């Protein structure tokens, strides 16, 4: 063990393996956690919930990562990457839980890398292209507000693993929502141009908001947050209308497939590979 290069211990016990801190084939992120599904918990429902929330997080993380080297300022690039990293961590935990309860015993990589677009259950808002910074901020505001509200409820889930994942996520999501809300106010209440872009972003996001409210009862809380932010920003409250189809049923826009091609290409080129 070398303390000079603390990451080198990762390679110990893997002599032919120049594995670094990222890649596939890592230990189950829930290793050692009691994975029993308590009696009375609907395993199929629990698996569907973990999958939907995992997919929202993975797809969002991929979009946020696209801002690397493109954000308006270094600080924002770091912020968006950090938010994406939190979501990626949540996705890993949720996929691991899903594999334990859906009867397949699949690991996190099977969910992230070896499913096709029609198998993904994320809301379509998460997969839309990044657009400009105003759009990404607006999307993050909506998604993080919804996810925070939903996770806060899930801390009382009868499944202790999901409850623990949610309790951890709540702390992270509070930072994400705060970041998006402050930018929304700064841009909405900023220059003529930033205000115009925020108005446009809200209009673009609006059709995809309704989809979030179909399954879980956090609509009032999310609407209250959006109202609070738009009022402070001098922006109109988005009017959301239902859009046909649902990402939760596997209906996606044409933007998900190319996102997954990029995300999955390396793992699919080297199946079972670890690095």
């Amino acid at each position, binding site marked *: 063990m070398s303390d000079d290069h603390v990451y080198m*211990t990762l390679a110990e016990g893997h002599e032919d393996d120049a594995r670094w801190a990222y890649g596939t084939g890592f230990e189950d*992120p829930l290793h050692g956690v009691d994975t029993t599904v308590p009696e009375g918990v609907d395993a199929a429902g629990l698996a569907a919930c973990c999958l939907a929330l995992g997919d929202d997080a993975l797809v969002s993380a991929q979009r946020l990562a696209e801002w690397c080297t493109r954000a308006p300022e270094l*600080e924002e690039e*770091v912020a968006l990457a950090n938010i994406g990293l939190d979501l990626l*961590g949540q996705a890993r935990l949720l996929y691991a839980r899903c594999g334990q309860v859906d009867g397949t015993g699949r690991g996190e990589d099977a969910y992230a890398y070896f499913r096709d677009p029609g198998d993904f259950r994320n809301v379509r808002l998460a997969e839309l292209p990044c657009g400009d910074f105003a759009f990404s901020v607006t999307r993050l505001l909506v998604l993080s507000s919804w996810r925070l509200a939903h996770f806060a409820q899930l801390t009382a889930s009868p499944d202790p693993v999901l409850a623990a994942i949610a309790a*951890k996520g709540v702390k992270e999501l*509070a930072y994400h929502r*705060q970041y998006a*809300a402050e930018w929304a106010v700064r841009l909405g209440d900023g220059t003529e141009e930033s205000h115009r872009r925020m108005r446009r972003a809200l209009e673009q996001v609006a059709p995809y908001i309704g989809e979030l409210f179909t399954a879980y009862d956090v609509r009032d809380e999310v609407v209250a947050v959006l109202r609070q932010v738009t009022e*402070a920003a001098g922006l109109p409250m988005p009017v959301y209308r239902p859009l046909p189809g649902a990402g939760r049923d596997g209906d996606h826009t044409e933007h998900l497939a190319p996102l997954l091609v990029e995300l999955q290409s390396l793992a699919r080129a080297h199946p079972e590979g670890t690095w």
Partner: protein
Amino acid sequence: MVTTGGDMVTTVSAEARRARRIAEQVPDPELPMLTLADLGVLRGVEITEDGTVVAGLTPTYSGCPAMAEMRAGVAARLRQAGFDRVEIRTVLDPPWTSDWITPAGRRKLAEHGIAPPGAAPRRSTGPVPLELSATRRSVTCPRCGSADTEETSRFAATSCKALWRCRSCREPFEYVKEI
């Protein structure tokens, strides 16, 4: 190794204490001035009946990429110390809070130019309120001690830190966030 009841208990608990001391001293990969014990991520070390050392680790953030290295570091140190059977378990509940950073850990952070966290926000159940005009917490500059500081970014080089700047000595510094 297996002796009569009383002796065994003594032996095992002494060994468990030794294992704990070893695990506690493993440095954090991202904040190497801190041990895992200082950071508050080591959640118990015990020896099971079959002689396996079981160490619990909790992630600071869900996506903390240092978790794999923490696991590897604890396992390597314990094996080096003669414990052949080691198991590292993830502990998610209760979730890590910056309040678990020990007083020694806070002192070491400050000595290395990183402002330690204040008290984590207390959360009750129910909706998490959004405060748009939240009073900024005051953070003391770890270099010159001035309270005249400002946040430049709530996110920094690792998940657990924010970037701040001191208006008095003009130096930027990192700050461990409260969660």
